[in-house]
Each structure stands twice: as structure tokens, then as C-alpha cells.
């Protein structure tokens, strides 16, 4: 394996959690809901993923637990913002604070325990192709799943009729409601899907990226995923590009720290966060791009009146 292959492999591992969380949040925001709680759902996915794998000895059971944990958190958010029409920004923050707190409490017993790593699934035949094989087809289930999700979400949003309805809700929930589309039900399902994806992202962190549990191990990745949705202007394939770009930034600062570049490690560690700000500024300064694609009803409350 060459150096380049090795770096590319690490880029994929750093990008996958960002991609998983961002693709879920993309669907949520397309439905007109802003869930700022990605970080909280993700960190719950991480701790429950780890826990599930420990209890059963099977990392796939961990993934299932992580998805359920993410969906459970999302359900709280959905109930508060959709049924009780509470402020979405504040509720998202509450979800993040609650997730960080709960995960810290639940994970206390797991600190320092060796984790169970998600095995790589070689695809027979293709994974032996030089270069492409080991990099792209010698990955674990969640990496494949991240790409399958991108394809599925693209198809769902832009080909399927249900996806069209979801986008209609996201742009104008009053009109969609008038047409008889059950706005709140669609949004509940979108939020749950987002929770499941964040759970997967968390599971990837604690079962594949670094198979262990560390408090706050998401380290702001949930927030970066939110920024990626804006960066990708609410389009799945642009989100993929963004996720891999950020994965590369994340990995390159780690490599620079390991090489001992003379730059203080704290500055390198803050690079992904600064890069997020820079990218957000670049994207938002292009008003036309951001105005066309932003779901028009994003974050606005909706109460069906009878």
C-alpha cells in the first residue's frame, strides 16, 4: 500500500461521519425544519453504539442501538418543535446539551475500555483491483451505507413523488397543507430519518474511526455537518464534496501534528473549525446561490388550523 493510498483511506474514515450526519440533516432541512441538535444525536449514537457492541459483542448490534438512540433523541425534538411548536433553534440547542449530558452519564462505565472495531467488508473480485480496490471496496458497512444513502436521498428528493411533496413542504408549508399534504407527519418522519443518520455517524466514530468511548468524542462534528448542508446548498452530491473536503482538512491537520511541523498543535486543531467559518462566508457571500436553494420555510413554525 502506498503512502497516497494510506492517506486517502484515512480521509474516507474522517469524512464518513460528517457525510452520514449531513445527508440526514439535509433531508430534515429540505422539509423546512432546522434541527441544530445533530451534535447531541450523534454523540448519543456514539455512546449507544459502543454500548450495544459491548453488551452483545457484535458491532452490528451496536449500529442498531446507535440508530435507535439517534431516533429517540430526534423524537423528543420532533415532539417539542412539531407538536408543541416550540422554537426550533432553542430546541436544537437543548437537544445538543441533553445529548452531551446523557452520553457523558451513560458512557462513564465505558471510559478506557477497549472497543470492538467494525470489520472491513471486502467486496469479492473488485477489492483486489490495485489502488481502487482497497481504497474504495475494502471498507466497512457504514462507508458503503453512506454512499448508498446519498444515492437513495438524491433519488427520493428529486425523482420520487413523496420527495417532491417533502420539498414542497419545506418551501411553503401553508400551501402544502392546503393541498392536503400532512405537513407535520412528513416532518416527523424527516426528523426521525435525520436522527437515524446522526446515530449512524456517531456509531462510525465509536466503532470504526476510533473504536473506544471518549466523552464529547464528536468534537463539534455535528455542527460541521450542519455547516456542510449550507455549504452543499441543500444538494446531496455537493454535500459529499464538502464532507470529503472537510475530512481531508481534518486528516491533514492530524498528519501535520504527527510530523511535527513546528506549528503549535492547538492552531492545527482549530483548523477544521476555522475552515468551516471561511467556507460558510464564501458560500453565503454568493447571495444568488444561497437564496435559490434555501428551503423557504426553513425554521418557521407551523400550526395546522382547523
Amino acid at each position, binding site marked *: 500500500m502506498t503512502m497516497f493510498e494510506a492517506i486517502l483511506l484515512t480521509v474516507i474514515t474522517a469524512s464518513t461521519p460528517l457525510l452520514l450526519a449531513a445527508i440526514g440533516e439535509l433531508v430534515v432541512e429540505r422539509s423546512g425544519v432546522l434541527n441544530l441538535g445533530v451534535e447531541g444525536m450523534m454523540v448519543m449514537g456514539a455512546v449507544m453504539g459502543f454500548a450495544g457492541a459491548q453488551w452483545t459483542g457484535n458491532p452490528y448490534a451496536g449500529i442498531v442501538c446507535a440508530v435507535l438512540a439517534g431516533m429517540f433523541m430526534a423524537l423528543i425534538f420532533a415532539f417539542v418543535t412539531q407538536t408543541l411548536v*416550540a422554537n426550533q433553534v432553542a430546541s436544537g440547542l437543548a437537544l445538543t446539551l441533553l445529548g452531551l449530558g446523557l452520553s457523558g452519564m451513560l458512557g*462513564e462505565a465505558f471510559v478506557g475500555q477497549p472497543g470492538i472495531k467494525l470489520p472491513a467488508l471486502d467486496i469479492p473480485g473488485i477489492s483486489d483491483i490495485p489502488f481502487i480496490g482497497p481504497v474504495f471496496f475494502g471498507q466497512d458497512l457504514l462507508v458503503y451505507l453512506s454512499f448508498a444513502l446519498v444515492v437513495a436521498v438524491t433519488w427520493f428528493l428529486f425523482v420520487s413523488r413523496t420527495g417532491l411533496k417533502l420539498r414542497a413542504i419545506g418551501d411553503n408549508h401553508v400551501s402544502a397543507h*392546503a393541498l392536503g399534504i400532512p405537513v407535520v407527519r412528513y416532518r416527523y418522519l424527516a426528523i426521525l430519518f435525520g436522527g437515524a443518520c446522526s446515530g449512524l455517524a456517531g456509531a462510525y466514530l465509536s466503532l470504526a474511526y476510533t473504536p473506544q468511548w471518549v466523552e464529547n468524542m464528536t468534537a463539534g462534528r455535528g455542527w460541521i455537518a450542519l455547516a456542510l448542508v449550507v455549504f452543499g446548498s441543500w444538494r446531496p452530491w455537493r454535500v459529499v464534496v464538502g464532507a470529503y473536503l472537510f475530512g481531508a482538512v481534518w486528516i491533514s491537520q492530524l498528519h501535520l501534528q504527527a510530523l511535527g511541523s513546528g506549528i*503549535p498543535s492547538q492552531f492545527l486543531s*482549530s483548523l477544521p473549525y476555522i475552515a468551516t467559518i471561511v467556507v460558510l462566508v464564501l458560500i453565503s457571500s454568493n447571495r444568488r446561490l444561497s437564496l435559490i436553494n434555501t428551503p423557504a420555510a426553513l425554521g418557521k*413554525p407551523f400550526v395546522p*388550523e382547523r
Partner: protein
Amino acid sequence: MRLELKKRPEHSKAMAIASPLIAIALTVAFGAILFAVLGYDPLKALYSYFIEPLTEAWSLEELASKATPLVLIAVGLSVAFLSNTWNIGAEGQYTMGAIFGSIIPVYFWQWDGWMVLPAMMIMGMIGGALYGAIPAFLKTRFGTNEILTSLMLVYVAGFFLDWLVRGPWRDPGGYNFPETRDFSEAAILPPMFGNGAMHWGAVFALVAVVVVAFLLGGTLKGFEVKVLGQAERAGAFAGFSRKKMVYFGFLLSGAFSGLAGIATVSGTVQQLQPSISPGYGFTAIIVAFLGRLNPVGILIAGLMLALTYLGGESAQVTMGISDKVVRVFQGMLLFFVLACDTLILYRISLVSGRSSAGKDDAPRENLVPAEEAV
């Protein structure tokens, strides 16, 4: 069976007062369940959590010293939130304020005199305000979402502080510990009573409450804050500038957060360390909402949240309950507050059967007051 919301003809005044109380009651009830699930006697746990810290003078002072930064930050944030500006990076502005204010005791540690403390406090406010100005600038100049930028800056400030105390600011005589030199006598906010934990920062918090109450209740600027927050177009017709308001919200909340930072470092920690806050900047968001964005409400809410920190410590000491429970409590409390605020605007009823919504009447966009709108 499902819940249905019916809009009240006007805000329920009774519910506006009752909703935070209901939220606290629900948090305590769920807390009892949580303790029971964890295998502790819920009544004993609740007692050591919420009552025990209030039974002794020293712990009351401890309570005040923890409420100080919470109240300071939250009253600043309430102005930003009321004007519909989402500064969620108070934790970073707190850190930057602490760093700016510490320039004096770190570099000019021989300087002695009454001028030292005021200079530090002003530097802290400047540091916090400047750091808050970054998301404000990006928002007004490029239209960049202030939620994400202000939050990202929290991480950056944390790493910057970490670098300072391990690098250039490390105490030369400190055996390589990651901390600055101890602040000199002149750079320490003195305790208010004897040797207690409560320092003069508590007075800053009270002054901040009065200033913001006057600002919101008795000045044109306060009116402008509320108009721009609730009806931006109306504000524009009145000649109020949205951009100036974004700056105002961020500079004010940044300055208060910075003051909270330097006051806590000077009064409680008495040197810079890699960690100078148990998440005050984020907990203050909860304080602001629990206090219903009202300065007096925030004062009470700040004491309440400070109690959760203290209760966490006391429950850990007396019953061995993990201090991680504190953040679970805080997160639950914010959720219950937000959920209960619905009661102010709506009547909630349980309806059986499926909805026929969307078939009879044309729906209306519901109008939501500032703190509800995004």
C-alpha cells in the same frame, strides 16, 4: 389520540409566570425517576441535590459565585435573543474576555494599585465584545449564519487559551504545569464577606440586570430591540437598522460574557488554566430562556441553574452520584421550559380520532412573538 393546539386570543399572563415553574416541577419529577433508575433513593438524592446546598452559609456564597457568570452572560444574551440575533458563542466570548483581561496580571504582574482591577475588567469586556464582533461582521457583511460561526469560534477560543497557558503564558516557576502565574493581590476581585467564595463580580451581575432592565423598559433602544425582533419590516419602516442591531446584540452580549470571564478568572480561579468554565456560556442560554428573556427572571433562573452545579457536587460527595447528571438536568430543564412556553400562546387539548386538518378551512400562518420566531 393526539394533542391539538388552539390559539389563545391573547397571551396568558398566568401561564407566562407558571410555565417556568411547571418546567422546574417536571424536571424535578423526571430527575426523581432518573435517580430511581440509577439505583439511588430519589428523595434522598433530590434533597442532597436541591436542598442541602442551601442549608449552609458557605454554600450560599458558592451559589452566588456560580450564579454570577450565568446571570451576566444571560442578561446580555437576552438582548441579542429578543432582537432575533442568535449568539450561541458566549462560551468563546467568555474565554476571550478572560484572556484579554489577564494580559495585565500576566505581563504587568508587578503593577500594583487600585487601577489594576478596573483596567482588567474593561479589557475583559473589550475582548469579549471584539470576539462577538466577528460573527456580527460576517453576518452583516456576507449574510453568514451567526449560529454556526459563533459556535465554531468557541472551539477556536478554547484552543487559543490552551496554547497560551501551555506556551507563552506558562508560569516560569510553575513546574511545567499548564497554568499562568498566580494573579497578584491587586489583580484579584476580593471576596465580599471575609474569606468567602462570593466576590464582587456578583455586584457586576446585579448592575447588569438593572442596566438591561432599564434598557429594555425605559429607552428607545430597548423598544428598537423588541420591534426588530418581533416585526422586522415594521422596524425597517420606523427607520431602525437591522445591521446595527446585529452589532448591538453581539457587542453587548460579547462584552457581558467577557466581563463574566475575567471576573470569574480574577475572583475564583485566580490564574488562567486550560479549563476556566464548566460550560457557563452554554448554560447561560438555558438561564436566558428559563428567565423568559426578562432581566429579573434571569436573576432567579441564574440562581436556579447555579444550584444544579452545586447540587451535582453535593450529590457526588454525599451519595456518589456522578456529576455528569448535572448536564442531563440542565438539558431536560431547557426542553421542559421550551415545551411549557407553548402553554402561554396555546390551549392544549387531547383529541381522539384522526385529524381532518387541511380539508375544511384555509390555514393561516401563525404569528409568533420574538422569542418564538427564528
